[in-house]
């Protein structure tokens, strides 16, 4: 009789322990909850990119005589998605740019879509927004002054044109 009671007690304790362990093991995950999602919140950055129609050019630059002006035509295109402003910087280098003080070859004018700018070395212009008028015609004039003397004979020079595009602010 005593043995039977002991067995029963042991079984009861075991059952309680098992039940308690089960509750501890799964209890924290048994509560209810409800979740809702908001999806497709998309953030996309635009692009800002320009190209110049000509990466190099030499026609007309050879065989210049004093008093000559040659024109470098370029086509600037906005191929990004963002509206932009751009700055044109020109630089003449080489022997022809320093062959005769005051009479060496220089950039005498820069035009954007036919509009002349009085400060040709560096200018700022607002381009059209991407898609509406995506291209501007740029012309850069290089002049070898009429006063250039023989020291400028058989000399060569290099013109670099850099266009820097910035997002509009």
């Amino acid at each position, binding site marked *: 009789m005593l043995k039977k009671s002991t067995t029963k007690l042991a079984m009861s304790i075991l059952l309680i322990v098992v039940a308690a362990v089960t509750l501890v093991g799964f209890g924290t995950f048994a509560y209810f909850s*409800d979740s*809702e*999602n*908001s999806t497709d919140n998309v*953030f*996309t*950055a*635009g692009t800002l*990119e320009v190209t110049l129609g000509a990466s190099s050019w030499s026609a007309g630059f050879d065989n210049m005589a004093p008093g000559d002006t040659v024109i470098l035509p370029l086509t600037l295109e906005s191929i990004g998605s963002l509206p932009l402003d751009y700055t044109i910087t020109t630089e003449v280098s080489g022997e022809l740019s320093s062959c005769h003080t005051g009479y060496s070859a220089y950039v005498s004018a820069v035009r954007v879509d036919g509009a002349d700018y009085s400060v040709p070395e560096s200018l700022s212009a607002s381009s059209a927004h991407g898609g509406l008028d995506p291209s501007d015609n740029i012309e850069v004039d290089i002049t070898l002054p009429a006063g250039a003397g023989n020291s400028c004979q058989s000399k060569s020079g290099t013109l670099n044109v850099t266009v820097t595009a910035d997002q509009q602010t």
Partner: protein
Amino acid sequence: MHKRNITAGLLFIIVALALVGTGTYAYFSDTASSTGNSFTSGSMGMKQADDDEGPVDATISETWVMENMQPCVTVAGDVSSCDSNSRTLNTISYYNHGSILGDHMEFSFSFSGDVAMAEYIRILHLQYDGYIPLSAGSLSDTNGNGYPDLEDLASPLNSSKLDNLPKVNALGHRDLTMDLGFSSTAGNTMQGKSMTMVVTATLNQDASQ
């Protein structure tokens, strides 16, 4: 006389046996039942709505969207150069329509795509129904870039600030509002990149959740 006594005694025994044999089945009894004791679990349910969807007990989409962004929010927080593509202010409203009100709300944010962009999506304003502890200023600057952003918001270091928020009451709603802008610190590496955000709101039954 003696013989009669014996007969009477036998008769008594027979009667007694007869009583014993049938008596246990002769008592009255009655049974009463309690039926229809049903147990039905309650439900927790939320609906949500933004400016053009809901309230629905389903997923909503495209609450915060910025297309063709350009960097605009200065480090100092100046937004004057931001266009409508580069800044968005929107709200999701949460409604409680379950039979169990629950204990608290919890939010989580996840990203896909060019997730490096999260650092540059600046949180200009963050509010959960006027609950002060959850605000842009209360977020830890986990990436050290000097301003609160979506990367900070989704960081595990800030998850405690997104938990144990006031639940939605049976009547009315609570609103999650965010004003977001594209930071001026995003460089050219971010050009053309795209990231998608999922906002998950969970209504929990118990404080331990």
